[in-house]
């Protein structure tokens, strides 16, 4: 029994076990400090659905050896452009959402391709450059949002007449268009967004299916041992570009899923730091810098969003202060730090 426990902890890693137990203790403590478990659970599940696809977006690049995609904002920008363009075209409901997706994906392919070309020139330093490419593009888009010739009254600054607002509501367009699909409530406090979860499951399935194809298999090999892949005749550079494009596309889809649940499109500096929670989540789920699985995504997103949801409510009730922000910073960055300082281990 002891051996089994030890091998589980070894395989899972101490940080994960500690955080898992921490989360469990929060759920247990919740009722005692006046926080409803069903609300918390519901909130956590909603947030998992919201963020899941963006965390999923990290998998291709990790698998192909490009490291953690700190340049996720690039895909998010593609999604934002799709969203505001769809609103500008005044298409509502599910069609509006699909139009947004179509535009976002098209743009994401183009951006991802250019991004992939850049990363191929800087092998070994991908993560740092990804971070700053992400930041620069967000800053560049800040200028673009100001100059974009869109006119929809829902999006424009009140007085002034041009330039998009910082936050744009999607109410009346495609708010919760996925979440509400086949959703159900259990009592007044528990809401389950079935549609969003179905969509998340669909995205997971597509990713899983991709890695079962010939190309997906090749991509895994490239990340696992690029020399091996090259010796087997695989075009390593091409595989990396494919992984970057995939990652950017999933990032674009991910932000749209997020927005339809959240209710708002956040422009300007909104996407600036969005890569970090996703990176922390997948690392928390057990991924390393060059290996990630769907299990890592699901477990990690659940743990991470659980911490984010539970910590403010429980700890604030206990200590009468709002420490959520600080705890979020410490946990997510601590997790990334741990992954970066681990020697490349062969054990999973």
């Amino acid at each position: 029994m002891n051996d089994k426990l030890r091998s589980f902890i070894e395989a899972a890693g101490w940080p994960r076990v500690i955080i898992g137990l921490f989360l469990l203790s929060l759920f247990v403590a919740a009722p005692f400090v006046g926080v409803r478990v069903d609300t918390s659970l519901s909130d956590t599940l909603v947030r998992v659905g919201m963020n899941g696809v963006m965390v999923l977006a990290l998998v291709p690049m990790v698998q192909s050896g490009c490291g953690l995609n700190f340049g996720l904002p690039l895909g998010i920008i593609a999604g934002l452009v799709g969203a505001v363009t769809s609103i500008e075209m005044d298409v509502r409901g599910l069609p509006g959402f699909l139009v947004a997706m179509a535009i976002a994906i098209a743009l994401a392919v183009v951006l991802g391709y250019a991004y992939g070309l850049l990363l191929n020139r800087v092998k070994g330093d991908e993560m740092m450059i990804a971070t700053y490419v992400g930041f620069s593009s967000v800053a560049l888009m800040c200028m673009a949002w100001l100059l974009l010739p869109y006119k929809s009254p829902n999006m424009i600054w009140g007085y002034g007449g041009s330039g998009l607002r910082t936050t744009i509501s999607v109410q009346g367009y495609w708010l919760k268009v996925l979440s509400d699909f086949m959703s159900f409530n259990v009592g007044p406090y528990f809401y389950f967004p079935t549609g969003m979860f179905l969509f998340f499951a669909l995205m997971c399935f597509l990713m899983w299916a991709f890695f079962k194809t010939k190309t997906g298999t090749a991509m895994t090999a490239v990340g696992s041992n690029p020399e091996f892949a090259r010796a087997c005749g695989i075009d390593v550079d091409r595989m990396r570009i494919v992984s970057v494009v995939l990652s950017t596309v999933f990032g674009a889809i991910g932000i749209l899923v997020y927005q339809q649940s959240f209710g708002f499109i956040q422009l300007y500096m909104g996407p600036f730091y969005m890569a970090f929670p996703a990176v922390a989540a997948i690392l928390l789920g057990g991924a390393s810098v060059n290996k990630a699985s769907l299990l890592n995504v699901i477990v990690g997103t659940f743990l991470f969003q659980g911490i984010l949801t539970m910590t403010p409510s429980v700890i604030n009730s206990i200590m009468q202060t709002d420490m959520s922000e600080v705890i979020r910073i410490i946990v997510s960055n601590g997790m990334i730090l741990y992954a970066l300082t681990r020697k490349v281990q062969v054990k999973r």
Partner: protein
Amino acid sequence: MASNEPILRLEHVGKEYFGNRVLSDVSFTLGPGEIMGLVGENGAGKTTLMKILFGMPVIHQTGGYDGKIFFEGREVSFKSPFEALDAGIGMVHQEFSLIPGFTATENILLNRESTRYNLLVEVFDDRLRTLDRPVMRQRAQRAISTLGVEIDPDTLCSEMPVGHKQFTEIAREIDRSNTKLLVLDEPTAVLTESEAEILIKAVRNLAAKGMSVIFISHRLQEVIDLCDKIVVLRDGHVVQEAKTCDVTVRQIAGWMVGRKVEESHREEGEVRSFGPTILSVRNLWVDMPGETVRDVSFQVRQGEIFGIGGLAGQGKLGIANGIMGLYPAGGAVELNGKPIRLNDPEGSLRAGMAFVSEDRRGVGLLLDEGIDWNMAFTAMQIQEKFIRPLLGGLVKWRDDRAIEECANEYIKALEIKCTGPKQRAVELSGGNQQKVCLAKAFVVRPEVLFVSEPTRGIDVGAKKLVLDTLRRYNREYGTTIVMTSSELEELRSICDRIAIVDEGRIAGVLPAQTPSEEFGLLMMGEIKVSTEEKVKACE
């Protein structure tokens, strides 16, 4: 120039790595001012012997060594290179250990710079002493002059020709005031002929001043020209210790490679017949660091087992790597009369060639994945085996079940010891890993199979199985095999013809049954003395 007391004496030195004996009963002496040549094939034990002498930590970590070493009359046992350095033994390795952006002076005095005191040393650290550059320059100049070469001490190492880099390394050892024994490991490997001459003269200068030298080289001509005595190692034993003036070149070659004639694996009365030329290589060059190929040409007949041998670093490993596109290469290669495009791994694979690399873990395997993936991978990517086309061919779905079946087949055929087809490759032993690599090549059913160092680092039982499997594939399926190996006897037991590579070129191609010492002669570089005469006149 030897005086009475030898500066170095080895008595019955031996070394065993986890039951694998690599050195036994090595004894020799070296006097002050004497130059000794250390000669032997790969795996003869030269490197291990030097590691023991120089106190490399790996020796101590794996159980130490047998026997005694006496330096300057006292018994010594170094536990780290720094102890050896302090005692007076300097070593110049094959790979340069220089800081490219530093001048010759700075490199020669690396971590031993002359310094001047200043107040801040009291407050912080001894290392805040300022460098005394004029004194440093003097010291460097002195070391360079002792060598008898012309190098400006202020040149940056990155801008020096290769020969000067080598001299800078040697100057570094000389600057240590107490160096009495200098070990040079293949110092002329990267030098031009004229630079090598300068080096040899410089070493003679040093020896005349009293420095003892151990000179490791495979270029027999240099060993003959320079050394006073020669020690030949083979399979971990000292086969012979003699003065150079007492021996002939043929004798040296024989000592280096000759062994008891082993049972040939060839069946009695087997007549081997081959088809037309299947592989033709002309003027091949390959840029593989450490195994550079300069100009290689040969032809292989269909159905043949063709061996490529030679000493380490001479280029034999580069040939297969170059033909299979793993390193930049040029030249003309034809398979079945059709030209092969180089620098294109996919092209070489599609043409019908396969490669089992010498670098099992680095290139040959996906350590994190299962045996089944490893075996099926090449065939899946190149020949689309194990693929189920879905949606009218749009989606190429991986057929995991077929992969597993295939893996099980080969696990049985090659007797791979594992817990199942899904076991991760990293967990297998070396021998079993090699069998997986072979299986990966067999699945592709190549016309020509390149195998490099097939039995390196695997146990005796697995060795036999690997070689038998290769022979079986050659006899049953007619696969032409090109086998590169540093073990001459292995090549002689299985190949039909063997080419020896020296300095990036083919030194000769001989039938496998030719006596070993002929191959030994080919390995030892150009020799200016007739093989039968004594190498030089004794004094």
